[in-house]
Every structure is written in C-alpha cells, then in structure tokens.
C-alpha cells in the first residue's frame, strides 16, 4: 500500500426522495491496497459503487478515481477500471467467449493469452451461452471481464457469490496480485472471512453512514476476544454483567461465555474472586464479531 490516493470520495451523498441511501461519505482508497467494504443489506454499499461507476448521480459531494471526477470524466476513467456489478447479469444469448469479445472490443488492448490464463485459473467454460451457465460459472465470466484488461482499479460488488471455495481462494489471490502490482481493489462483500483474508483495510457502513474505517490489523488489535470460563461450582450472571468490556454474556451452570474487550488480568481477578477456575479458553474475535459489536454500539447510541 502506498500514500497515493486511488479512489477518493468527499461528502458523497445520495438521497432517493426521503430515503437517505448514502450520507456524507468521506473515504480514501490507496494505490496498492485491497479495501474491504462491509455492511448489511441496504446499508449503502451498492449505492456507493454505483456512484463511483457514474451509474447514478450524487445528491451532494463528489468522487474521484485516479484523480479524475467520476461524473465529469467517466469514459476516460473506465479504461483503467475493472468492474463486477452486484447481482451480475450478462447477455444470455452470447457465449462466454462472445461476451468477453464484446467487452474487449469496447475497451481495446485486451491480451487474449491473458484471458485464457484467467479462464484456466478460474476453471471457466467460455464456450457455453451465458444463459445456460450456472450462477457460479456466470460469475466467473464476469470476474474474467473485470480482470482481462489488467485494470489499475477493480471495483467489485459481492463478486464471490456463487464461486466455490477453491475458486474463491484463486480469486482472492488474483486480487492480491492486482494490489501487489500497485493497483487498488474496492471490494464490497458479505463474506467477512474473505475480507479478513484479502483486505488491507476495512470500511464498515450502516444506514448509509460509514461507521468505521480501520486496517484489518487495527481491528484485530482492538482486543476483542471470545472468552469461555469453566468453574468448579455454578456461577451467576450478576458477577460478570457489570464488568466493563463484557458483551454477549451467557452463563450456564458451571460454564460462562462472553465477548470481552479489555485486560485479561482484570477479568481473571473477578472470575477467581469467589470461584475456582477449572479451565479457560480464549480466542481472537473474527471480523464478524467485531462487525456485530460495532452494530451493537451504533444501535445503543
């Protein structure tokens, strides 16, 4: 990752009548990074991507890609962009090869040996009509068309949907290669494990607002852990529920489970005040738990 800004949004806002789909989004994505864009359904992820692609126009604010305004200079910009829209649809009567030929003709400069290489890596059948392909195989054609002109910027909305785990891994490798070569990947996803594996930084969006913008490493370093305690005698919830940093507390007889953010020493001191500790299991929270924690915080505000 470098300091060079590849994608920038400033106060980017989109309203549909009374619906505020995106509110005041300020975001920078840097050259050489994979940026994960997370959020539940209807959070504003697709709206952001459609604004970046000039499919829709902002109510306020603006966006630039590679320093060019996405609305004023869209045609020139698209030479450098690879795009996989959400809920990908293509021309059912064209074969995969015809589809790629069509887009290659519109873009120019596509190296067909590279297309063949991509098809091999993703195990894609380009001889069948798109309408006859399964959703996963159709998605492969969509991914190939996004990568085939070696784009500087990749913008993808839920691109892994329908891909099997082996292919997903190869696809993630392809994204990392783009970043390693100085490109940028803007990846909207529900698949948190995928973002965790592939992204350098993560933006979390909810109700149209960006509520967190962190590197994956920082998020993990927040210290949120999953903790399970086993005692010799039954414990009660009242002993733990008021402890600072404890969330999602479940107490079942001798067994206590929780999410905990804070010093383990403090927690252990409280746990052993009245009981004898038999066993302790702790693990780093994954993004999903961090993700849910943020929502919890947002809703309680």
């Amino acid at each position: 990752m470098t300091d060079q800004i590849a994608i920038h949004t400033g106060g980017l806002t989109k309203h549909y009548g009374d619906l505020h789909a995106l509110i005041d989004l300020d975001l920078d994505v840097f050259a050489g990074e994979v940026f994960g864009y997370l959020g539940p359904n209807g959070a504003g992820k697709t709206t952001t991507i459609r604004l970046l692609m000039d499919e829709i126009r902002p109510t306020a604010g603006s966006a630039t890609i590679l320093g060019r305004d996405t609305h004023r200079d869209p045609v020139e910009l698209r030479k450098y962009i690879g795009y996989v829209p959400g809920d990908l649809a293509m021309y059912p009567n064209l074969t995969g090869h015809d589809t790629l030929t069509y887009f290659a003709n519109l873009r120019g400069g596509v190296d067909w040996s590279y297309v063949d290489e991509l098809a091999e890596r993703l195990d894609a059948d380009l001889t069948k009509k798109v309408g006859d392909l399964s959703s996963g195989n159709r998605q492969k054609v969509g991914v190939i068309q996004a990568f085939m002109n070696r784009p500087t910027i990749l913008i993808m909305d839920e691109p892994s949907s329908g891909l099997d785990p082996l292919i997903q891994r190869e696809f993630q490798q392809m994204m990392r290669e783009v970043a390693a070569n100085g490109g940028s990947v803007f990846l909207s996803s529900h698949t948190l494990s995928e973002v965790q594996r592939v992204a350098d930084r993560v933006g979390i969006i909810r109700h149209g607002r960006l509520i967190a913008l962190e590197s994956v490493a920082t998020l993990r370093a927040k210290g949120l852990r999953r903790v399970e305690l086993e005692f010799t005698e039954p414990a009660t919830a009242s002993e733990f529920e008021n402890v600072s940093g404890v969330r999602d507390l479940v107490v079942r007889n001798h067994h206590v489970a929780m999410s905990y953010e804070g010093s383990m020493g403090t927690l252990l001191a409280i746990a052993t005040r009245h009981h004898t500790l038999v066993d302790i299991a702790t693990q780093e929270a994954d993004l999903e738990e961090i993700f849910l924690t943020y929502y919890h915080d947002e809703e309680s505000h």
Partner: protein
Amino acid sequence: MLASVFTKTIRDRWIGMFIGAITLGLLLLMGMAAYKSIDLSIYDSMPAGFRNLLAIPKGASIGALAYGAIYTSYGALTLAALLIPMGTGAIAGEERDGTIGLLLGNPVSRISVVAQKAAAIVVVAAFGGVVLWLAGIGAPAVLGVTVTGVTLASLSFAMFVNALFYGFLALAISTWTGKRGIGAGVSTGVLIVGFIAAGLFPIIPGWENAAKVFPWYYYASNKPQINGVDWWHILVLLAAVVVFVAIALIGVGRRDLRSQSVGVTIMDRLRANPRTAKIVERIAGSAQVSTIWMKSVSEHQGLLIITVYVMLIMSLAIGPLYNLITGPIKEFGASLPPTLLALFGGGNLSTADGFYQIEIFGMMAPAAVMVATIAIGSRALAGEEQQRTMGLLLSNPVSRGSVVLQKTVSMVIHGVAVGISIFIGVWLGSVIGRLGMNAWHIAATCLLATLIGLVVGALALALSAATGRVRVAVYGAIGVALISHVLNAFLPLNTSTEGLTKWTPFGYYLNSDPLANGMDWWHGLVLLVLTLVLVGLAVAWFQRRDLRQRG
C-alpha cells in the same frame, strides 16, 4: 391482489388493457366529433355491396360510422394485440425471467398455473370489452349524438371473443415450446395476415371463400356492429380457444421447464459444425459483438427477417391481385370523395397506385417499419436496464451518448431494411402485374414510410431514455402513432380542421400523395428533423438520469 396466480396476473396486466381501451374510447370521441361536422349523405349514394364492405349501414348515422371506423378494426386489433403478451408471458415469460422455479416451488401444479393464467386472460379481455362498451355509450352522450342501427354490445362481445382467440393462440404456442418469441410472432402474424386477407379476398371474384381460412373472418365478416352476434362464428372462435387451452395444459406438463436458459438456434448449430464454423463464426460470432450497434442489429435479426419477409411477399402479391378486382368496384372507387378516401389511407380503388395506397401504404407499411423501430427503440436502453446489463456495458470506456447513438444506428438500419423490402415488393408487384407504377414514386413513398417509422421509433427511444421502462416506451410510441394516424384521417373531414394535419407526424407521410406526385422533400425533411430532435432528446435525457437498478 397477490392472493393467487390468477389475481396477481390481473394485477400486473389490467392497467395496460385499461389504458389501451381508454385511448380507443378517446379516439372514438374524436371520430364522432369529426363525423358530426360533415355531410353524411355521400354514404347513402354508395352501392349496397360497397357500403357493406366498409361496414356502413344504409342511412348511416354518425355513431355507426365512428364505431365502424374506430372500434371494428383499431379496437379489435388493439384488444387482440394487448392479449398476445399475456399469452406469451404466462409460462414462457416466467421461464425467461427465471421465476417459474420459484413459483412452482409452492404447492401449486403446472396445470393450475396455466389454468389461472388462462382465467386471468379471459377476465382482462372482458374488462377491456366492458371499458370499450362503456366508452362507446359515453362518447355519443358527451357529444349529444343519437346512435341508431348499431349493436354496440354485440360488437364489444365479438371484439372480446376475437381477442381471446389471439391471446390463447399465443398461450398455446408459447407454453408448448417455452419460447415467447415464437408465440408472439405466430400470433401477431396470424392477426395481421388474417386482418388483411379477410378484408381483401371478399372483393376478389372467385376468391370470396378463401377469407374463411382466416380467424378474423369469424369476427368481422357478419359486421357485428350492424348485424349483432353471429353465434356460429363465435362458436368457431371459442372452439379454437378451447383447443388452445388444451394444448397449453398438455404442453406445460410434457416438457422440461427452462430456467432462464436460451435455445439452440440454427446459427449455433452451424457454428458448432466444423464445415460451416469458419464462415458462420465471422458472420454470427465475432462480427455480431464487434460494436454496440452491430450487436443491437443482430439481437433483433429474427424480428427483422420476419418483417422483411412478410412485407416483401404482401407488397409483391398486391400487384397481381389488383388485376383480379372487378371493374365496377374500380369505377365506384373513382367516384368517392377524397375526404372519405382519407380514412383508408387516401387511396383510390380505380388506380393501381390508389389500391397499393389502401392495402400497403395506408397502414401496413408504416406499421411494419414501426414494428422494427419501436422494438429496437424501446429496448435499446430500457431493455438493457431491465436485464441489468447497462451498468456492465457502461463500465467500458463508452459514453452514454455514444450508446444512444449506436442504438439509433441499429434502429435506422432495421427501419431502412424494412423500407427497402417494401420498395422491392411493390416494384416487383407492379412489374409482375403490369401496373406501370413509377419506381421513383414508389421509392419516395417507401422513404417517407421509413421516415415516419423512424419518428415513432425515435419517440420510443426517447421515452426509453427518459424513463428506463420498456412498457412506457412501447405503449407511449404506439399510442402517439395511433392518435396521429387517426387525427390525420379525421381532421381533413372538416374544412375548418383540415389545416391541423400539419401538426401530426402522419400529416407528413402520405398527405403529399407521393405515389402519384413523387417525393415531397419538405415533408421528408420535417420527418427527418423530428427524428433527429427526438434522438437528441434521448441523448440528453439518458445522460442526465440515474440508471435503474431493476427493471
């Protein structure tokens, strides 16, 4: 309205039928207003046979004339045309949309779905008939006109049954094959060919009975607006409807359902064959995806081939047929006043030019060009948005303006191709029938027909660009074309409104009588400028708005 397949289908379709029927009601009102202001005595001087041919009773009243002119042909054609998409959409449409699996994932059988959709077709058709009937009662009441000698209820009922025939024909074919295109193509072909043949054969001596082969005969031949319902004819149509329902019910059960998949075309087979692969690959493979306009041209090639073929054959056949028409009809045709002839495209039966004008250029030629141009114009932008491919298309380095203009190029190519096919057909028909028509004049008329088709196609394109909705573009363009055509026919009936035809696009099509006088370049220029303005609006509107995410 979402309680069942039956009610949901009605919910999705009633509004189109309502708008169509109301538009026809308004046309009736305009027609009556025009007839109210002219001297009708001319009709009484016609021979009974000819009057009958035009569905005009002795002592015809304003009402009888207006119903005959608007409802009997336009009304019945519109009602039938609105039911065809219901028939094709019933099962094949759900298959194309990929929703059939979800629908049948519920505890409802295939047969039940077809039966409910069929029932909805009947209800929507009846709804259309009732609206037409009410409008038919309302129009004379508004104008203070007394209607005599017309059985409006019989006419409405006959139009309803007639429409059912085509709706269920489309249902049967589409449900049996799983292909909407085949159902729509065959049903529309039977409708148009039948409409023309049932009117044409009765005036050709020795060929009168040939009209009975065509379903339109069983609707129109006994003039239901004058003579009431002919139950034998209705029975023939209803028997056919029963057969079509049976075909649909058997058809849906006998085959694998398609899941948004696409069929194997002849081109696909030729591409797969090593002997033909190379040449076909060049024509149908790489060439068709070389540019946006080439792809758009190739996407609609099936419709183009059918339209060109039908127009070529029909235009060619009219020439030799003209020689079969007897002298008295020709002589009488020569005596009819021009105002009356304007209703039938301004032609004159006494000359070959006039006969071609009535049979081909009056309605068929512009309609055929419009079939091609509206199909592309409406789907060019809104169709891609509906299929959710526009976002992907525009992710390439191509501007929205360029997309609109390239789609316009494909629309022009299709329109011109249909225009040329009509020219070749008419010219050959003239040569074969030794009619001695002027080839330049034929070319001029075909050029004007192409231009009026392009105006309406460009309107569809502009509506498509402004709204992103295919239906709005199709119905809007057809509605404007229909109203313009009827206004252009009726406004000249009254000298005080005659000059107003210059405000309708159709006023620049045949009003200069190009078959007799050759090209009126001023009229051609007006149509060309109108087309360019509409395309310009399409570019401006499309550049300005958000793309729709869903169709």
